[in-house]
């Protein structure tokens, strides 16, 4: 039985995105013709860790991000916007070096054709200076925006040294959500997982449950995050949480090894485990469809 993209999207609402791997997406010219005014897609890139060096882990550490930029630019149809979900730069203990890395990162991503680019920090960007350098280059660390009927919320769970959302931001979130209808389409971006994915490896947010509790009354909520350098798909109730691949080095599956270390480079499969994703958004039915790409821009 052949399932076309629209039938496939009907399988799930926005809170439980479907995976369009192997199927056409809005980024494919042929399917773009089917799109309505309410349909669009965005691209999520994550954990680029600009400034990281380590031959055994990524011998092309200065080239991988540039390849990803080129791959996104080569999509037949360009996304409405691009979201970077944190760890734009790799941590450095030197404030000046941090700014140098951010400047270099900013320069590289300026080559993206799409100019509607959104950023948020990871702990490598903001954990040591409470986001001071990040704000200088990229603006606020938490904010909202609306696009074609979807409400996007960017939550910062890294700038506080304790890696929490924090009381003030939770109050801000509560106030923002009160303006939404129960059936509003809401997409949340975070760096760390809001739920307890694997606390032994710090793959959680200490007060993330409070944010999830605030989101629970809303029927159409999806969370996209980074931090763990691999795909992961998990639901807390009706809220789906989707982790993205990174663009510097993959990490092992949660709890699969005693110590969390980057997975070494595989010369026979270069760039394995690295990539980005596109997310198709439709209004009727209210749904999301995720497609994963490798660094070359080939759909997986």
């Amino acid at each position: 039985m052949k399932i076309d993209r629209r039938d496939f999207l009907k399988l799930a609402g926005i809170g439980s995105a479907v995976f369009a791997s192997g199927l056409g997406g809005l980024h494919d010219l042929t399917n773009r013709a089917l799109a309505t005014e309410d349909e669009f897609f965005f691209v999520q890139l994550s954990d680029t860790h600009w400034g990281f060096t380590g031959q055994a882990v990524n011998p092309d550490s200065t080239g991988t991000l540039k390849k990803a930029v080129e791959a996104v630019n080569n999509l037949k149809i360009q996304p409405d916007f691009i979201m970077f979900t944190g760890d734009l730069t790799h941590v450095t203990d030197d404030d000046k070096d941090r700014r140098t890395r951010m400047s270099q990162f900013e320069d590289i991503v300026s080559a993206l054709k799409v100019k509607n680019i959104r950023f948020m920090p990871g702990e490598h960007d903001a954990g040591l200076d409470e986001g001071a350098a990040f704000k200088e280059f990229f603006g606020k660390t938490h904010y909202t925006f609306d696009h074609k009927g979807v409400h996007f919320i960017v939550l910062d769970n890294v700038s506080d040294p304790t890696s929490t959302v924090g009381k003030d931001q939770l109050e801000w979130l509560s106030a923002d959500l009160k303006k939404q209808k129960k059936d509003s389409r809401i997409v949340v971006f975070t760096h760390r997982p809001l739920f307890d994915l694997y606390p032994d490896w710090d793959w959680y947010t200490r007060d993330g449950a409070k944010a999830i509790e605030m989101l629970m009354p809303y029927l159409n909520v999806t969370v996209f995050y980074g931090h763990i350098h691999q795909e992961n798909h998990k639901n807390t109730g009706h809220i789906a949480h989707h982790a993205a691949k990174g663009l510097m080095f993959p990490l092992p599956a949660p709890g699969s090894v005693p110590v969390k270390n980057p997975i070494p480079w595989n010369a026979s499969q270069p760039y394995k485990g690295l990539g980005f994703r596109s997310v198709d958004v439709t209004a009727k039915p209210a749904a999301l469809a995720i497609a994963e790409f490798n660094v070359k821009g080939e759909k997986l």
Partner: protein
Amino acid sequence: MKSTKSRLLVYGAVVAFILISTSSYFVAAENEQVIQITAKRFEYSPKEITLKKGVPVVLEFTSLDRLHGFTCPSLGIRMDIRPGKVNRLRFVPDKVGTFPFHCDNFCGSGHEGMRGTITVTE
């Protein structure tokens, strides 16, 4: 005379409050083991700790530089290690084994390696 006595009582209460409120004043219970641990970028000292099952322990953390964290999820204990004070964590080990702990407040380039183990014996 009475007012002097009252003043002395008040002063005494204030001094007691200050002593109890400051980290320098601490008395371990009779059977409590006290272990002092320093934390700095990017290590604990000591980083290997051996405890006895069922014997109450106080871990006394001191940071030598910045905010660090201590978490041992397998034993269900964690604490922020704030500089400028002694940070005490009381607990009773209730199971035997070797349990990893690590810093869970992002502290810099060596953060991922700031780890240790607690071994609990019978």
